[in-house]
């Protein structure tokens, strides 16, 4: 504590510019591997652009109660299948702040279909408005929403409504919470299985290696989506949605750990014969210590690359399965279950805004691919 204080004091007293320059010159030689990786990652423009978007996505969906203008199950009975509401800023050439026009429903005289027309009634929009009460993260009761009509009860649908009159944007945010956290949770399981089995396989060699390798061969020979579907179909139908979510994560990782397992095994094989490993073993370190303390930090960056690479595949897999009705099931909102609303050509043709959740999927997967590319380039900063 005192040492820190004196050091800090010294550096502010000394010539700031000169010290900084000297630091920059010598920093490259003494920078840690992670710092070098960060510098290399920073050069990848696409990845750097993707990073904040991924963060925003996670922020939006993790705090979806706050960012959503309403609640996912609230039905606006008079606004079923309502197209997106446009946000205006200027009224008759004059800036009056964001507002929307209230929509009235009517009947198309030719097709007898319900249509919505803008009325002249201005509904003011604002930030941090009071809306429907909710509990933030199921803990803090509040009714503040990030953006919405100033007076509560205004019908504001950024991405339209579904056939039951529920706000698609709100549901997409809540669905994103499920889909994005699903990726993280199943990646965690993948990480555990892949690291353990891949590590054992590479470290023990011989019989264990043979078994794990054959297991990887078997899993990789069976097409992924049908295998996921078959395993998901075996889950009992009366499972609670939370248990089902966890089980789906486990299924995803049971099928998906093979890639990581191979990376870990290959890397362990390449460092197994290094002198520092022999030294550690000679000085009496246990197998676990040798693996986790000495070997894994050597190739941690490759593990991270492999994991980032499998996030998009997990998201696509979960949404595809949920879309087909074999993944997460109806009361659970995920991007896949939301897209079930547009399974018919009529729905897509007449209410194209129901496809908006797809936009979230594409953007997320795209950004993870960019970030993964940047990470792959940065994984070996000494190259």
């Amino acid at each position: 504590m005192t040492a820190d204080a004196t050091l800090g004091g010294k550096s502010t007293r000394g010539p700031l510019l000169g010290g900084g320059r000297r630091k920059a010159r010598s920093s490259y030689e003494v920078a840690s591997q992670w710092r070098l990786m960060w510098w290399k990652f920073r050069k990848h423009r696409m990845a750097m652009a993707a990073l904040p978007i991924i963060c925003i996505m996670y922020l939006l969906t993790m705090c979806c109660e706050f960012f959503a203008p309403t609640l996912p199950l609230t039905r606006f009975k008079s606004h079923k299948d309502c197209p997106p509401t446009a946000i205006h800023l200027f009224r008759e050439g004059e800036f009056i702040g964001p507002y929307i026009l209230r929509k009235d429903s009517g009947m198309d005289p030719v097709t007898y279909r319900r249509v919505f027309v803008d009325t002249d009634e201005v509904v003011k929009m604002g930030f941090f408005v009071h809306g429907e009460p909710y509990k933030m993260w199921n803990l803090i009761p509040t009714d503040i929403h990030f953006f919405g009509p100033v007076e509560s009860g205004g019908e504001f649908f950024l991405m339209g409504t579904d056939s039951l009159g529920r706000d698609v944007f709100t549901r997409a945010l809540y669905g994103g919470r499920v889909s994005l956290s699903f990726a993280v949770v199943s990646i965690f399981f993948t990480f555990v299985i892949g690291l353990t089995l891949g590590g054992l396989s590479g470290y023990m060699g011989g019989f264990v290696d043979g078994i794990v390798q054959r297991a990887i061969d078997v899993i990789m020979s069976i097409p992924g989506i049908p295998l996921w579907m078959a395993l998901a179909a075996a889950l009992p139908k009366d499972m609670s949605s939370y248990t089902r979510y966890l089980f789906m994560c486990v299924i995803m990782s049971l099928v998906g750990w093979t890639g990581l397992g191979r990376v870990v095994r290959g890397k362990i094989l390449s460092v197994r014969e290094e002198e520092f490993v022999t030294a550690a073993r000679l000085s009496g370190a246990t197998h676990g210590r040798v693996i986790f303390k000495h070997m894994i930090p050597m190739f941690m960056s490759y593990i991270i690359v492999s994991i980032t690479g499998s996030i998009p595949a997990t998201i696509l897999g979960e949404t595809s399965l949920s879309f087909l009705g074999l993944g997460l099931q109806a009361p659970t909102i995920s991007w896949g279950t939301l897209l079930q609303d547009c399974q018919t050509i009529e729905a897509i043709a007449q209410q194209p805004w129901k496809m908006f959740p797809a936009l979230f999927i594409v953007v997320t997967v795209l950004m993870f691919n960019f970030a993964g590319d940047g990470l792959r380039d940065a994984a070996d900063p000494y190259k």
Partner: protein
Amino acid sequence: MLLGYIAKRALKLIPLLLAISVVIFIIIQLPPGDYITNYIIQQQNSGLEVNQSSIISMTKRYGLDQPVYLQYFYWIKNIVTRGDFGQSMQWTQPVSQLLSERLPATILIALLTLCVTWGVSIPIGIYSATHQYSVGDYFIIFIGFIGLAVPGFLLAMCAVYFIFTHTGQSLTGLFSSAYVNAPWSVAKVVDMLPRLGLVVFIVGLSQTAGLVRQMRAMLLDELQKQYVITARAKGLEERRLLWKYPIRMAINPMISTIGWILPGLISGEMVVSIILSMPTMGPVVRRALIAQDMYLAGSFLLIVSVLTVVGTLLSDILLAVVDPRIRFGGVTE
């Protein structure tokens, strides 16, 4: 030399095939309840008379009153010796009959997609690598990213939507309604082609994007090597220089991935077929899984996995034919 190599590879596959069959048998057994009880309930639900003698004969045939490991044995024996994959509960007909109706189309689409994917991605990859950082290269990279990020079902939905709104035609199914039951003729094939093309395009897009990336990266690696510089310094014509070694070297790792692309293609084909309601295995397997009609779904998985294994064997053989270093045992892996 080559024959010995093939024999060795083929022998290695037998334990793999056995392991796959065990895994799939476990999957078939996973849902709660035993087959006969479920079968009776299914029959009663659909209002059919439950035939006691047929139940007894089925129990005997599939060894359903035996312990599980014997059931596995009966299951495999029936498949290998008689091509009998069990009974589909939903359709109340033998699984093998359903498979023979639907599976050829699935495999046809997958293989066709494989050929198209390869035929398209290698030239594009070569162009992209030889014109690195050009406008065309960036365009290809961009399309590739999109192809990797858009899920197949979404692409299929969008395609159906755009074709419907622009031409008023619904391109679902493999044939238009006029030809579904018509005998094979030139007109029927012509009618089928755009539909088949659509499926192949949608299924192939993400695979193509992946392969183009791989081809580009491999060729770029190769082009930086010293033998290329030497050849160029000696004044070798650019086209000759490219075709003589770098491309051959870059294609090799792609050949070895054929076996692993096949499961991906079949996965993709399944999802897309469900959206486009193709007369392939996709929609059938989906319904079978929702109804937990496991013999049907499991048999599909088994056949497709065996095909994948055969695919890897073929790709190994092809690689040995193309790459003399492997043929003569110079390179182990």
